Protein backbone atom coordinates (compact mmCIF):
# COMPACT_ATOMS: atom_id res chain seq x y z
CA UNK A 1 0.00 0.00 0.00
CA UNK A 2 1.31 3.49 -0.80
CA UNK A 3 1.66 5.68 2.28
CA UNK A 4 2.47 9.32 3.05
CA UNK A 5 4.30 10.51 6.18
CA UNK A 6 4.05 14.07 7.42
CA UNK A 7 6.23 15.76 10.05
CA UNK A 8 4.43 18.89 11.17
CA UNK A 9 5.87 20.81 12.93
CA UNK A 10 9.59 20.26 12.42
CA UNK A 11 10.95 21.09 15.85
CA UNK A 12 13.92 23.07 17.12
CA UNK A 13 14.00 25.23 14.02
CA UNK A 14 13.04 28.89 13.76
CA UNK A 15 9.65 28.90 12.10
CA UNK A 16 6.95 26.58 10.87
CA UNK A 17 7.59 23.85 8.34
CA UNK A 18 6.01 20.58 7.35
CA UNK A 19 7.44 17.44 5.82
CA UNK A 20 5.47 14.96 3.75
CA UNK A 21 6.83 11.60 2.66
CA UNK A 22 5.00 9.52 0.07
CA UNK A 23 5.46 5.73 0.03
CA UNK A 24 4.44 3.28 -2.69
CA UNK A 25 2.66 -0.02 -2.13
CA UNK A 26 5.98 -1.69 -1.27
CA UNK A 27 6.81 0.82 1.45
CA UNK A 28 9.50 2.43 -0.67
CA UNK A 29 9.76 6.23 -0.65
CA UNK A 30 8.27 7.63 -3.83
CA UNK A 31 8.79 11.30 -3.02
CA UNK A 32 9.24 13.75 -0.15
CA UNK A 33 8.79 17.48 0.38
CA UNK A 34 9.79 20.06 2.94
CA UNK A 35 6.89 22.53 2.80
CA UNK A 36 7.00 26.07 4.15
CA UNK A 37 3.43 27.01 4.78
CA UNK A 38 3.32 30.58 6.04
CA UNK A 39 3.32 33.74 4.07
CA UNK A 40 3.47 37.37 5.06
CA UNK A 41 4.76 39.27 2.08
CA UNK A 42 7.19 41.79 3.53
CA UNK A 43 8.48 42.51 0.04
CA UNK A 44 5.08 43.88 -0.88
CA UNK A 45 3.96 45.84 2.12
CA UNK A 46 7.24 47.73 2.47
CA UNK A 47 6.49 49.34 -0.89
CA UNK A 48 5.36 52.93 -0.46
CA UNK A 49 7.42 53.45 2.70
CA UNK A 50 10.32 55.92 2.65
CA UNK A 51 13.71 54.28 2.10
CA UNK A 52 15.10 55.31 5.47
CA UNK A 53 12.48 53.19 7.21
CA UNK A 54 13.68 49.97 5.57
CA UNK A 55 16.50 49.04 8.02
CA UNK A 56 14.06 49.46 10.91
CA UNK A 57 11.01 47.80 9.36
CA UNK A 58 12.67 44.75 7.88
CA UNK A 59 14.25 43.61 11.11
CA UNK A 60 10.71 42.84 12.27
CA UNK A 61 10.91 39.87 9.93
CA UNK A 62 12.47 37.93 12.73
CA UNK A 63 13.28 37.90 16.44
CA UNK A 64 16.36 35.73 15.93
CA UNK A 65 18.24 37.45 13.12
CA UNK A 66 16.95 41.05 13.09
CA UNK A 67 20.53 42.35 13.10
CA UNK A 68 21.27 40.64 9.79
CA UNK A 69 18.21 42.20 8.14
CA UNK A 70 18.99 45.57 9.70
CA UNK A 71 22.53 45.57 8.32
CA UNK A 72 21.75 44.13 4.88
CA UNK A 73 19.02 46.74 4.45
CA UNK A 74 21.36 49.45 5.75
CA UNK A 75 24.00 48.51 3.18
CA UNK A 76 21.39 48.78 0.43
CA UNK A 77 20.03 52.08 1.73
CA UNK A 78 23.58 53.49 1.97
CA UNK A 79 23.74 53.17 -1.81
CA UNK A 80 20.47 55.03 -2.20
CA UNK A 81 22.07 57.99 -0.39
CA UNK A 82 25.13 57.59 -2.61
CA UNK A 83 27.43 55.78 -0.20
CA UNK A 84 29.16 52.55 -1.23
CA UNK A 85 30.67 50.32 1.49
CA UNK A 86 34.16 51.74 0.88
CA UNK A 87 32.85 55.28 1.41
CA UNK A 88 31.44 54.62 4.89
CA UNK A 89 33.55 56.05 7.72
CA UNK A 90 35.85 53.55 9.52
CA UNK A 91 33.87 54.16 12.71
CA UNK A 92 30.56 53.32 11.02
CA UNK A 93 31.93 50.24 9.27
CA UNK A 94 33.56 48.87 12.41
CA UNK A 95 30.56 49.51 14.64
CA UNK A 96 28.34 47.72 12.15
CA UNK A 97 30.84 44.85 12.08
CA UNK A 98 30.84 44.70 15.87
CA UNK A 99 27.05 44.37 15.80
CA UNK A 100 27.22 41.83 12.97
CA UNK A 101 29.75 39.57 14.69
CA UNK A 102 27.89 39.90 18.00
CA UNK A 103 24.87 38.59 16.11
CA UNK A 104 26.80 35.72 14.50
CA UNK A 105 28.25 34.80 17.89
CA UNK A 106 24.92 34.74 19.73
CA UNK A 107 22.92 33.16 16.90
CA UNK A 108 25.39 30.31 16.38
CA UNK A 109 25.61 29.80 20.14
CA UNK A 110 21.83 29.59 20.33
CA UNK A 111 21.69 27.04 17.54
CA UNK A 112 24.42 24.81 18.87
CA UNK A 113 23.57 24.85 22.55
CA UNK A 114 19.77 25.12 22.47
CA UNK A 115 18.82 23.38 19.24
CA UNK A 116 21.50 21.03 17.96
CA UNK A 117 23.31 19.81 21.06
CA UNK A 118 20.54 17.38 22.14
CA UNK A 119 20.94 15.52 18.82
CA UNK A 120 24.69 15.27 19.31
CA UNK A 121 24.75 14.55 23.05
CA UNK A 122 21.89 12.07 23.19
CA UNK A 123 21.85 10.73 19.64
CA UNK A 124 19.16 10.76 16.99
CA UNK A 125 17.50 7.73 18.61
CA UNK A 126 17.05 9.43 21.98
CA UNK A 127 13.51 9.52 23.35
CA UNK A 128 11.61 12.71 22.56
CA UNK A 129 11.66 13.90 26.17
CA UNK A 130 15.46 14.06 26.07
CA UNK A 131 15.72 15.98 22.85
CA UNK A 132 15.70 19.47 24.33
CA UNK A 133 17.75 22.01 26.21
CA UNK A 134 16.17 21.06 29.55
CA UNK A 135 17.74 17.60 29.25
CA UNK A 136 21.05 19.20 28.26
CA UNK A 137 20.84 21.33 31.43
CA UNK A 138 20.15 18.25 33.53
CA UNK A 139 22.94 16.12 32.11
CA UNK A 140 25.59 18.60 31.01
CA UNK A 141 25.31 21.65 33.21
CA UNK A 142 28.68 23.06 32.18
CA UNK A 143 27.75 23.01 28.50
CA UNK A 144 24.37 24.61 29.16
CA UNK A 145 25.81 27.37 31.35
CA UNK A 146 28.45 28.14 28.75
CA UNK A 147 25.80 28.22 26.04
CA UNK A 148 23.66 30.70 27.92
CA UNK A 149 26.66 32.85 28.85
CA UNK A 150 27.99 32.92 25.29
CA UNK A 151 24.59 33.82 23.87
CA UNK A 152 24.27 36.54 26.47
CA UNK A 153 27.70 37.93 25.56
CA UNK A 154 26.69 38.30 21.91
CA UNK A 155 23.38 39.85 22.88
CA UNK A 156 25.11 42.32 25.18
CA UNK A 157 27.36 43.39 22.29
CA UNK A 158 24.25 44.04 20.20
CA UNK A 159 22.61 45.93 23.05
CA UNK A 160 25.71 48.08 23.57
CA UNK A 161 25.76 49.29 19.97
CA UNK A 162 22.04 49.22 19.14
CA UNK A 163 20.31 49.95 22.45
CA UNK A 164 18.37 46.69 22.62
CA UNK A 165 19.15 42.99 22.28
CA UNK A 166 16.30 42.52 19.82
CA UNK A 167 15.17 45.07 17.25
CA UNK A 168 17.70 47.70 18.29
CA UNK A 169 18.88 50.33 15.84
CA UNK A 170 22.45 51.24 14.95
CA UNK A 171 22.57 51.92 11.22
CA UNK A 172 21.17 55.01 9.56
CA UNK A 173 21.50 55.88 5.85
CA UNK A 174 25.20 56.49 5.23
CA UNK A 175 26.45 55.43 8.64
CA UNK A 176 25.53 54.90 12.26
CA UNK A 177 23.77 57.08 14.82
CA UNK A 178 26.09 56.54 17.76
CA UNK A 179 29.69 55.97 18.65
CA UNK A 180 31.06 53.49 21.18
CA UNK A 181 32.41 54.77 24.49
CA UNK A 182 35.48 53.46 26.28
CA UNK A 183 33.24 52.57 29.21
CA UNK A 184 31.09 50.43 26.90
CA UNK A 185 34.24 48.77 25.55
CA UNK A 186 35.64 48.05 29.03
CA UNK A 187 32.43 46.21 29.97
CA UNK A 188 33.46 43.46 27.53
CA UNK A 189 37.15 43.47 28.42
CA UNK A 190 37.48 43.75 32.18
CA UNK A 191 35.34 40.74 33.19
CA UNK A 192 33.82 42.60 36.13
CA UNK A 193 30.19 42.32 35.08
CA UNK A 194 30.18 39.54 32.51
CA UNK A 195 32.70 36.94 31.33
CA UNK A 196 35.12 38.81 29.08
CA UNK A 197 36.00 38.34 25.44
CA UNK A 198 39.11 36.28 26.26
CA UNK A 199 36.89 33.79 28.06
CA UNK A 200 34.58 33.71 25.04
CA UNK A 201 37.55 32.84 22.82
CA UNK A 202 38.73 30.19 25.25
CA UNK A 203 35.28 28.60 25.44
CA UNK A 204 34.87 28.79 21.66
CA UNK A 205 38.17 26.97 21.20
CA UNK A 206 36.99 24.35 23.68
CA UNK A 207 33.79 23.82 21.71
CA UNK A 208 35.71 23.43 18.45
CA UNK A 209 37.92 20.82 20.14
CA UNK A 210 34.83 19.08 21.53
CA UNK A 211 33.35 18.91 18.06
CA UNK A 212 36.53 17.59 16.49
CA UNK A 213 36.62 14.79 19.07
CA UNK A 214 32.95 14.13 18.43
CA UNK A 215 33.69 13.71 14.73
CA UNK A 216 36.53 11.30 15.50
CA UNK A 217 34.13 9.16 17.53
CA UNK A 218 31.13 9.31 15.19
CA UNK A 219 32.83 9.77 11.88
CA UNK A 220 30.94 7.25 9.82
CA UNK A 221 27.52 8.58 10.80
CA UNK A 222 28.55 12.21 10.34
CA UNK A 223 30.20 11.54 6.98
CA UNK A 224 27.26 9.63 5.56
CA UNK A 225 24.14 11.17 7.07
CA UNK A 226 22.43 13.43 4.49
CA UNK A 227 25.57 13.54 2.36
CA UNK A 228 24.91 14.68 -1.21
CA UNK A 229 26.70 16.70 -3.89
CA UNK A 230 25.73 20.34 -4.31
CA UNK A 231 27.03 23.79 -5.02
CA UNK A 232 28.24 26.02 -2.18
CA UNK A 233 28.18 29.81 -2.01
CA UNK A 234 29.42 32.62 0.23
CA UNK A 235 31.30 35.90 0.29
CA UNK A 236 35.06 36.37 0.15
CA UNK A 237 37.39 39.37 0.30
CA UNK A 238 39.77 40.54 -2.44
CA UNK A 239 42.27 37.79 -1.61
CA UNK A 240 39.78 34.96 -1.19
CA UNK A 241 39.48 35.12 2.58
CA UNK A 242 36.12 34.69 4.29
CA UNK A 243 34.34 38.04 4.50
CA UNK A 244 31.06 38.03 6.36
CA UNK A 245 30.24 41.74 6.16
CA UNK A 246 31.24 42.92 2.70
CA UNK A 247 32.90 41.09 -0.16
CA UNK A 248 32.37 39.35 -3.47
CA UNK A 249 30.15 36.38 -4.21
CA UNK A 250 31.87 33.08 -4.87
CA UNK A 251 30.26 29.73 -5.63
CA UNK A 252 31.76 26.32 -6.33
CA UNK A 253 30.31 23.01 -7.43
CA UNK A 254 30.51 19.78 -5.45
CA UNK A 255 34.01 19.12 -6.82
CA UNK A 256 35.34 22.59 -6.05
CA UNK A 257 35.21 24.13 -9.52
CA UNK A 258 34.11 27.77 -9.55
CA UNK A 259 30.60 28.41 -10.73
CA UNK A 260 30.56 32.05 -9.62
CA UNK A 261 33.90 33.75 -9.75
CA UNK A 262 34.07 36.48 -7.11
CA UNK A 263 31.45 38.75 -8.63
CA UNK A 264 30.40 42.11 -7.25
CA UNK A 265 27.29 41.78 -5.09
CA UNK A 266 25.67 44.55 -7.16
CA UNK A 267 25.49 42.11 -10.07
CA UNK A 268 23.53 39.36 -8.32
CA UNK A 269 20.50 39.79 -10.58
CA UNK A 270 22.57 38.96 -13.65
CA UNK A 271 23.52 35.60 -12.19
CA UNK A 272 20.57 34.46 -10.08
CA UNK A 273 16.98 33.59 -10.70
CA UNK A 274 14.31 32.27 -8.32
CA UNK A 275 11.89 29.43 -9.00
CA UNK A 276 8.64 28.71 -7.18
CA UNK A 277 6.85 25.49 -6.29
CA UNK A 278 3.14 24.98 -5.69
CA UNK A 279 3.78 23.14 -2.42
CA UNK A 280 5.86 25.80 -0.62
CA UNK A 281 5.87 29.55 -0.03
CA UNK A 282 9.66 29.49 0.03
CA UNK A 283 11.34 30.23 -3.30
CA UNK A 284 14.22 28.31 -4.90
CA UNK A 285 17.16 30.53 -5.98
CA UNK A 286 19.60 29.18 -8.54
CA UNK A 287 22.44 30.23 -10.82
CA UNK A 288 20.95 31.01 -14.20
CA UNK A 289 23.82 29.56 -16.21
CA UNK A 290 23.49 26.16 -14.53
CA UNK A 291 19.71 26.07 -14.58
CA UNK A 292 17.07 25.19 -12.00
CA UNK A 293 18.18 21.59 -11.42
CA UNK A 294 21.94 22.08 -11.08
CA UNK A 295 22.25 25.73 -10.17
CA UNK A 296 21.26 25.74 -6.50
CA UNK A 297 23.78 26.25 -3.72
CA UNK A 298 24.07 25.57 -0.06
CA UNK A 299 24.88 28.63 2.01
CA UNK A 300 25.91 29.07 5.63
CA UNK A 301 28.79 27.79 7.74
CA UNK A 302 29.58 24.60 5.79
CA UNK A 303 29.41 26.40 2.44
CA UNK A 304 31.62 29.19 3.77
CA UNK A 305 34.26 26.69 4.91
CA UNK A 306 34.17 25.21 1.42
CA UNK A 307 34.39 28.37 -0.65
CA UNK A 308 36.94 30.51 1.20
CA UNK A 309 40.71 30.25 0.78
CA UNK A 310 41.32 31.20 4.40
CA UNK A 311 39.70 32.76 7.46
CA UNK A 312 41.33 36.06 8.37
CA UNK A 313 41.72 35.39 12.10
CA UNK A 314 44.46 33.02 13.31
CA UNK A 315 42.67 30.63 15.64
CA UNK A 316 39.69 30.15 13.35
CA UNK A 317 42.01 29.66 10.37
CA UNK A 318 43.89 26.98 12.27
CA UNK A 319 40.56 25.33 13.08
CA UNK A 320 39.52 25.55 9.41
CA UNK A 321 42.78 23.91 8.33
CA UNK A 322 42.06 21.09 10.74
CA UNK A 323 38.49 20.87 9.45
CA UNK A 324 39.45 20.56 5.78
CA UNK A 325 42.34 18.19 6.54
CA UNK A 326 39.89 15.90 8.33
CA UNK A 327 38.18 15.10 5.02
CA UNK A 328 41.24 15.15 2.80
CA UNK A 329 40.82 18.78 1.71
CA UNK A 330 37.95 17.84 -0.60
CA UNK A 331 34.77 19.86 -0.83
CA UNK A 332 32.70 18.81 2.15
CA UNK A 333 29.18 17.77 1.13
CA UNK A 334 28.20 16.16 4.45
CA UNK A 335 25.29 17.98 6.05
CA UNK A 336 26.29 17.14 9.61
CA UNK A 337 29.64 18.90 9.29
CA UNK A 338 27.64 22.13 9.39
CA UNK A 339 27.77 21.98 13.19
CA UNK A 340 31.57 21.86 13.28
CA UNK A 341 31.77 24.64 10.69
CA UNK A 342 29.34 26.71 12.76
CA UNK A 343 31.56 26.44 15.84
CA UNK A 344 34.61 27.52 13.82
CA UNK A 345 32.61 30.63 12.92
CA UNK A 346 31.79 31.17 16.60
CA UNK A 347 35.53 31.24 17.22
CA UNK A 348 36.08 33.57 14.26
CA UNK A 349 33.37 35.91 15.52
CA UNK A 350 34.94 36.02 18.98
CA UNK A 351 38.35 36.85 17.50
CA UNK A 352 36.92 39.61 15.33
CA UNK A 353 35.02 41.05 18.30
CA UNK A 354 38.23 41.13 20.33
CA UNK A 355 40.11 42.91 17.55
CA UNK A 356 37.32 45.45 17.18
CA UNK A 357 37.13 46.11 20.92
CA UNK A 358 40.81 47.10 20.80
CA UNK A 359 40.33 49.33 17.77
CA UNK A 360 40.17 53.05 18.59
CA UNK A 361 38.14 53.72 15.43
CA UNK A 362 35.11 52.47 17.39
CA UNK A 363 35.26 55.65 19.45
CA UNK A 364 35.37 58.04 16.48
CA UNK A 365 32.82 60.74 15.77
CA UNK A 366 32.72 60.56 11.97
CA UNK A 367 29.41 58.72 11.91
CA UNK A 368 27.40 59.62 8.80
CA UNK A 369 28.40 60.43 5.23
CA UNK A 370 26.31 61.60 2.30
CA UNK A 371 26.60 61.30 -1.47
CA UNK A 372 24.49 61.71 -4.57
CA UNK A 373 21.06 60.08 -4.41
CA UNK A 374 20.52 56.95 -6.46
CA UNK A 375 17.39 54.98 -7.29
CA UNK A 376 18.64 51.52 -6.38
CA UNK A 377 20.54 49.83 -3.57
CA UNK A 378 21.67 46.22 -3.08
CA UNK A 379 23.03 45.05 0.25
CA UNK A 380 24.45 41.56 0.73
CA UNK A 381 25.97 40.16 3.90
CA UNK A 382 26.82 36.74 5.24
CA UNK A 383 24.18 36.28 7.91
CA UNK A 384 24.62 33.43 10.42
CA UNK A 385 22.57 31.15 8.19
CA UNK A 386 24.18 32.24 4.92
CA UNK A 387 24.14 34.80 2.16
CA UNK A 388 21.41 37.40 2.68
CA UNK A 389 20.35 39.81 -0.07
CA UNK A 390 18.30 42.99 0.27
CA UNK A 391 17.46 44.94 -2.87
CA UNK A 392 15.45 48.17 -2.90
CA UNK A 393 14.40 50.58 -5.60
CA UNK A 394 12.94 54.02 -4.84
CA UNK A 395 11.12 56.76 -6.73
CA UNK A 396 12.16 60.42 -6.94
CA UNK A 397 10.49 61.10 -3.58
CA UNK A 398 12.45 58.34 -1.89
CA UNK A 399 9.51 55.97 -1.55
CA UNK A 400 10.28 52.29 -2.00
CA UNK A 401 8.85 50.98 -5.26
CA UNK A 402 10.45 47.53 -5.28
CA UNK A 403 11.92 45.21 -2.71
CA UNK A 404 13.49 41.80 -3.24
CA UNK A 405 14.79 39.73 -0.34
CA UNK A 406 16.72 36.51 -0.87
CA UNK A 407 17.12 35.11 2.59
CA UNK A 408 19.80 32.58 3.57
CA UNK A 409 17.28 29.85 4.34
CA UNK A 410 15.79 30.33 0.86
CA UNK A 411 19.14 29.46 -0.72
CA UNK A 412 19.15 26.30 1.40
CA UNK A 413 15.64 25.30 0.30
CA UNK A 414 16.86 22.72 -2.23
CA UNK A 415 19.54 21.49 0.17
CA UNK A 416 17.00 20.91 2.94
CA UNK A 417 14.64 19.12 0.55
CA UNK A 418 17.50 16.96 -0.69
CA UNK A 419 18.47 16.19 2.92
CA UNK A 420 14.87 15.16 3.69
CA UNK A 421 14.87 12.91 0.61
CA UNK A 422 18.13 11.34 1.78
CA UNK A 423 16.62 10.45 5.16
CA UNK A 424 13.40 9.27 3.55
CA UNK A 425 15.31 6.97 1.18
CA UNK A 426 17.97 5.75 3.58
CA UNK A 427 16.19 5.63 6.92
CA UNK A 428 12.44 5.29 6.30
CA UNK A 429 12.09 3.51 2.97
CA UNK A 430 11.16 -0.21 3.05
CA UNK A 431 11.17 -0.40 6.84
CA UNK A 432 7.50 -1.34 7.04
CA UNK A 433 6.79 1.05 9.87
CA UNK A 434 7.68 4.56 10.93
CA UNK A 435 9.20 5.31 14.33
CA UNK A 436 9.67 8.54 16.23
CA UNK A 437 13.41 8.10 15.81
CA UNK A 438 13.05 7.94 12.02
CA UNK A 439 11.02 11.12 11.98
CA UNK A 440 13.49 12.81 14.29
CA UNK A 441 16.21 12.05 11.78
CA UNK A 442 14.28 14.02 9.19
CA UNK A 443 14.37 16.91 11.62
CA UNK A 444 18.06 16.39 12.38
CA UNK A 445 18.82 16.80 8.67
CA UNK A 446 16.78 20.00 8.41
CA UNK A 447 18.06 21.37 11.71
CA UNK A 448 21.70 21.15 10.58
CA UNK A 449 20.93 24.03 8.22
CA UNK A 450 19.59 26.14 11.12
CA UNK A 451 16.69 27.26 8.94
CA UNK A 452 14.88 30.42 9.86
CA UNK A 453 11.56 29.72 8.22
CA UNK A 454 9.94 32.89 9.46
CA UNK A 455 12.62 34.91 7.66
CA UNK A 456 12.44 32.83 4.52
CA UNK A 457 8.75 33.38 4.08
CA UNK A 458 8.45 36.51 6.18
CA UNK A 459 5.92 34.57 8.20
CA UNK A 460 4.41 35.41 11.54
CA UNK A 461 2.56 33.78 14.37
CA UNK A 462 2.94 30.42 16.10
CA UNK A 463 5.02 28.28 13.85
CA UNK A 464 5.41 24.61 14.70
CA UNK A 465 6.22 21.77 12.27
CA UNK A 466 4.33 18.62 11.23
CA UNK A 467 5.08 15.27 9.47
CA UNK A 468 2.55 13.20 7.46
CA UNK A 469 2.67 9.73 5.89
CA UNK A 470 0.42 9.11 2.86
CA UNK A 471 -0.44 5.87 1.09
CA UNK A 472 -0.56 5.31 -2.64
CA UNK A 473 -4.19 6.41 -2.68
CA UNK A 474 -3.19 9.76 -1.18
CA UNK A 475 -4.78 8.88 2.16
CA UNK A 476 -3.17 10.16 5.36
CA UNK A 477 -2.24 7.07 7.37
CA UNK A 478 0.21 8.40 9.97
CA UNK A 479 1.25 11.76 11.32
CA UNK A 480 3.37 13.37 13.99
CA UNK A 481 2.53 16.83 15.28
CA UNK A 482 4.88 18.87 17.44
CA UNK A 483 4.45 22.27 18.96
Amino acid at each position, binding site marked *: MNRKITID*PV*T*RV*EGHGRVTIHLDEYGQVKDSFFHIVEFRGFERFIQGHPYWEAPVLVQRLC*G*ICPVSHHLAAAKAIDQIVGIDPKDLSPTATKLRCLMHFGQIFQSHA*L*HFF*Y*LASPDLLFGVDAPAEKR*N*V*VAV*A*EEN*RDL*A*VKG*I*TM*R*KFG*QEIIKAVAGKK*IHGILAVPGGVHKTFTEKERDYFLDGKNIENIDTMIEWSLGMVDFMRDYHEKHRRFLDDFAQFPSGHMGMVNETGGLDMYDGKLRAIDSEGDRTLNDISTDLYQEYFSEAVAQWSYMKFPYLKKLGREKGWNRVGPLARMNICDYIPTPLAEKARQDFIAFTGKKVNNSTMYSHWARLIEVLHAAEVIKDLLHDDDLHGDDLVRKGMRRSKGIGIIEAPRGTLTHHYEVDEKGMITRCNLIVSTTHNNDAMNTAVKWVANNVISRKGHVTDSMLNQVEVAIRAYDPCLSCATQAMGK*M*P*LKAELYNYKGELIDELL*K*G
Partner: protein
Amino acid sequence: MNYSKADKKGILVIGIGNSGRSDDGLGWRFADMLAALETENVDIEYRYQLQVEDALLVSEYAVVIFADASQETLEKGFAIRPCMPGSNYYFSSHMQSAETVLYLAKELYQTKPKAYTLAIAGYDWELGTSLSKQAQQNLLLAFDHFANAFLSELQSMKVKG
Protein backbone atom coordinates in the same frame (compact mmCIF):
# COMPACT_ATOMS: atom_id res chain seq x y z
CA MET B 1 13.74 45.23 52.53
CA ASN B 2 15.92 42.64 54.12
CA TYR B 3 17.05 39.77 51.98
CA SER B 4 19.04 37.17 53.81
CA LYS B 5 21.22 36.42 50.80
CA ALA B 6 23.42 39.45 50.24
CA ASP B 7 24.24 38.74 46.59
CA LYS B 8 20.59 38.54 45.54
CA LYS B 9 18.83 41.48 44.00
CA GLY B 10 15.30 42.31 45.18
CA ILE B 11 12.20 41.90 43.06
CA LEU B 12 12.13 41.37 39.32
CA VAL B 13 8.96 42.01 37.35
CA ILE B 14 8.97 40.66 33.79
CA GLY B 15 6.24 42.09 31.59
CA ILE B 16 5.56 39.57 28.83
CA GLY B 17 3.63 40.19 25.63
CA ASN B 18 3.42 42.32 22.53
CA SER B 19 2.10 45.86 22.71
CA GLY B 20 1.33 45.72 18.97
CA ARG B 21 -1.29 43.04 19.58
CA SER B 22 -3.92 44.91 21.59
CA ASP B 23 -4.57 43.15 24.92
CA ASP B 24 -1.43 41.05 24.51
CA GLY B 25 0.30 44.25 25.63
CA LEU B 26 -1.16 43.96 29.16
CA GLY B 27 2.10 42.62 30.60
CA TRP B 28 4.08 45.54 29.19
CA ARG B 29 1.49 48.10 30.28
CA PHE B 30 1.63 46.70 33.79
CA ALA B 31 5.43 46.93 33.71
CA ASP B 32 5.21 50.54 32.48
CA MET B 33 2.92 51.50 35.35
CA LEU B 34 5.12 49.80 37.90
CA ALA B 35 8.25 51.38 36.47
CA ALA B 36 6.63 54.80 36.90
CA LEU B 37 6.46 54.19 40.66
CA GLU B 38 10.26 53.92 40.77
CA THR B 39 10.02 51.57 43.72
CA GLU B 40 13.29 50.75 45.41
CA ASN B 41 14.48 47.15 44.93
CA VAL B 42 12.08 46.52 42.05
CA ASP B 43 13.59 45.97 38.59
CA ILE B 44 11.51 45.80 35.43
CA GLU B 45 12.16 43.81 32.25
CA TYR B 46 10.14 43.47 29.06
CA ARG B 47 9.90 40.32 26.98
CA TYR B 48 7.96 39.25 23.91
CA GLN B 49 8.55 35.69 25.05
CA LEU B 50 10.56 34.05 27.77
CA GLN B 51 13.80 32.51 26.60
CA VAL B 52 16.28 29.97 27.90
CA GLU B 53 18.75 32.64 28.97
CA ASP B 54 16.14 34.26 31.20
CA ALA B 55 17.06 31.50 33.65
CA LEU B 56 20.27 33.42 34.33
CA LEU B 57 18.36 36.65 34.85
CA VAL B 58 15.81 35.25 37.30
CA SER B 59 18.55 33.43 39.20
CA GLU B 60 19.89 36.83 40.28
CA TYR B 61 16.69 37.81 42.13
CA ALA B 62 14.99 36.83 45.37
CA VAL B 63 11.50 37.34 43.98
CA VAL B 64 10.29 37.14 40.37
CA ILE B 65 6.88 38.15 39.00
CA PHE B 66 5.87 37.08 35.50
CA ALA B 67 3.17 39.52 34.35
CA ASP B 68 1.27 38.48 31.24
CA ALA B 69 -2.09 38.75 29.53
CA SER B 70 -4.36 35.76 29.92
CA GLN B 71 -7.13 34.26 27.82
CA GLU B 72 -8.65 32.73 30.94
CA THR B 73 -11.85 34.01 32.48
CA LEU B 74 -10.66 35.45 35.80
CA GLU B 75 -13.16 36.30 38.49
CA LYS B 76 -11.43 39.52 39.55
CA GLY B 77 -10.07 40.27 36.09
CA PHE B 78 -6.61 39.20 37.24
CA ALA B 79 -4.97 36.49 39.33
CA ILE B 80 -1.71 36.18 41.21
CA ARG B 81 -0.52 32.61 41.63
CA PRO B 82 2.65 31.00 42.96
CA CYS B 83 4.85 29.67 40.18
CA MET B 84 7.02 26.60 40.71
CA PRO B 85 9.84 25.14 38.60
CA GLY B 86 8.65 22.62 36.03
CA SER B 87 10.47 20.88 33.19
CA ASN B 88 7.85 21.24 30.49
CA TYR B 89 9.80 22.13 27.37
CA TYR B 90 8.38 23.99 24.40
CA PHE B 91 9.74 23.04 20.99
CA SER B 92 10.91 26.51 20.08
CA SER B 93 14.26 27.96 21.11
CA HIS B 94 12.74 31.29 21.99
CA MET B 95 9.52 30.57 23.81
CA GLN B 96 9.65 28.99 27.24
CA SER B 97 7.16 28.85 30.08
CA ALA B 98 7.80 30.62 33.37
CA GLU B 99 7.98 27.19 35.01
CA THR B 100 10.70 26.03 32.61
CA VAL B 101 12.73 29.19 33.15
CA LEU B 102 12.56 28.60 36.92
CA TYR B 103 13.48 24.96 36.42
CA LEU B 104 16.54 25.92 34.38
CA ALA B 105 17.52 28.47 37.05
CA LYS B 106 17.34 25.70 39.63
CA GLU B 107 19.29 23.19 37.53
CA LEU B 108 21.94 25.53 36.18
CA TYR B 109 22.42 28.12 38.91
CA GLN B 110 21.08 26.26 41.94
CA THR B 111 18.70 29.07 42.80
CA LYS B 112 14.99 29.01 43.40
CA PRO B 113 13.57 32.53 43.55
CA LYS B 114 10.15 32.97 45.07
CA ALA B 115 8.03 33.35 41.95
CA TYR B 116 4.51 34.31 40.97
CA THR B 117 2.55 34.71 37.79
CA LEU B 118 0.32 37.73 37.44
CA ALA B 119 -2.34 36.93 34.86
CA ILE B 120 -4.48 39.80 33.58
CA ALA B 121 -7.50 38.86 31.51
CA GLY B 122 -7.49 40.12 27.91
CA TYR B 123 -10.05 39.80 25.13
CA ASP B 124 -8.74 41.36 21.92
CA TRP B 125 -5.59 39.95 20.27
CA GLU B 126 -5.71 41.62 16.88
CA LEU B 127 -3.17 44.12 15.53
CA GLY B 128 -3.43 47.39 17.44
CA THR B 129 -1.70 49.34 20.18
CA SER B 130 -4.63 50.08 22.45
CA LEU B 131 -6.24 47.87 25.07
CA SER B 132 -9.88 46.83 25.02
CA LYS B 133 -12.06 48.64 27.55
CA GLN B 134 -12.46 45.58 29.78
CA ALA B 135 -8.73 44.77 29.64
CA GLN B 136 -7.93 48.35 30.63
CA GLN B 137 -10.22 47.97 33.64
CA ASN B 138 -8.59 44.66 34.57
CA LEU B 139 -5.17 46.27 34.31
CA LEU B 140 -6.15 49.01 36.76
CA LEU B 141 -7.59 46.45 39.19
CA ALA B 142 -4.47 44.31 38.96
CA PHE B 143 -2.16 47.26 39.40
CA ASP B 144 -4.11 48.63 42.34
CA HIS B 145 -3.95 45.29 44.14
CA PHE B 146 -0.32 44.70 43.27
CA ALA B 147 0.98 48.15 44.17
CA ASN B 148 -1.10 48.69 47.29
CA ALA B 149 -1.24 45.23 48.80
CA PHE B 150 0.85 42.49 47.20
CA LEU B 151 4.01 44.50 46.73
CA SER B 152 3.93 45.62 50.36
CA GLU B 153 3.64 41.99 51.41
CA LEU B 154 6.65 41.11 49.30
CA GLN B 155 8.62 44.09 50.56
CA SER B 156 8.01 43.13 54.16
CA MET B 157 8.97 39.50 53.61
CA LYS B 158 12.38 38.29 54.65
CA VAL B 159 13.04 36.14 51.64
CA LYS B 160 15.45 33.33 52.09
CA GLY B 161 17.40 32.98 48.86
